[in-house]
């Protein structure tokens, strides 16, 4: 049986990864906007992002816009590949259902 990547195979991280994967490759999203899209608390989102970051699926980058600090989140190439492998594996497990 195909293994489902445990880093992604949890509700919160699956939603985060799917959301980041919907961006064009190379696009970054601000933390507050990501939070809004996912409807998660900031604390919970940071915790899961840290796990994704540890797996090198996600890159978190802090920068400044004028004086306000902005945190950008992006899916790494590795993360995008892992997400694609995950969805492939999911389909394979479910018997090649489209």
């Amino acid at each position, binding site marked *: 049986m195909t293994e*489902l990547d*445990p*880093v992604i*195979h*949890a*509700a*919160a991280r*699956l*939603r985060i990864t*799917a*959301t980041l994967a*919907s*961006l*064009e*490759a*190379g*696009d*970054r*999203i*601000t933390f*507050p*906007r*990501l939070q*809004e*899209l996912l409807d*998660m*608390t900031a*604390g*919970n989102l*940071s*915790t*899961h992002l840290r*796990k994704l970051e*540890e*797996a*090198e699926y996600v890159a978190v980058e802090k920068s400044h816009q004028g004086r306000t600090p902005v945190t*950008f989140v*992006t899916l790494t190439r590795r993360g995008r590949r892992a997400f694609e492998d995950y*969805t492939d594996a*999911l*389909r394979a*497990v*479910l018997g090649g259902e489209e």
Partner: protein
Amino acid sequence: MQTGLQYKVVMTTNSTPPVDDEPLQSPDEALALLREQQGALERDQLGGIPWILGVWGVAWLVGFGALWSAYDDGNPWFQLPPAVAAVIFAAALVAAMAISGWIAIRLNRGVRGPSNFSGAVYGIGWPIAGFSAYLMGVALALNGMDRELQSLFFPAIFALVAGVMYIMSAAIWRSVDQLVLGIIIIVTGTAAPFFGAPTNNLVMAVLGGGAFLVAAVVMRLSSRSATR
């Protein structure tokens, strides 16, 4: 290598345990969740577009309807003084530009990167092409084009600009709906002058405004059914 899976979550700023951290029960549940999230994203990202189209539909209907009502042989139900019609027309277009611009800017908020380029080029394309079309009309007017011809020329050239922009939008964001809309707008703009003034305004209001409104409804319904 560390898989990054076995860690203790020791938060300094937040001591509550993470939510939705457990492995999902089944692949079915995972797929359902994935689809739900992708659907929610699509609704969020495309949800504004029907409103943009709707705003333009109303603007064309009201604006060109007002112009049509400014002629003796125009609107049979009521007549507007030309100055009032011109103000209504301008107000409708300015309002539509402002509202749709605001919605469009909000669509991609919080995202930076390569996709910004397409959006920015497309966004700046509208005023560049629109202003150029306006100047062409001014040049023709300065060289003797009378008011009646102007009233045929301006709507036609603006419809051409808008139609081409919708076709570009269809190409960038891969939307067949917007391609169809762009073609209808161009056909409307091309056909309208053949009717002569003031009927050309009626054609613009009904065919052009109608096309926007139908496109708005179609896109709203299709984004709903796609994400059910």
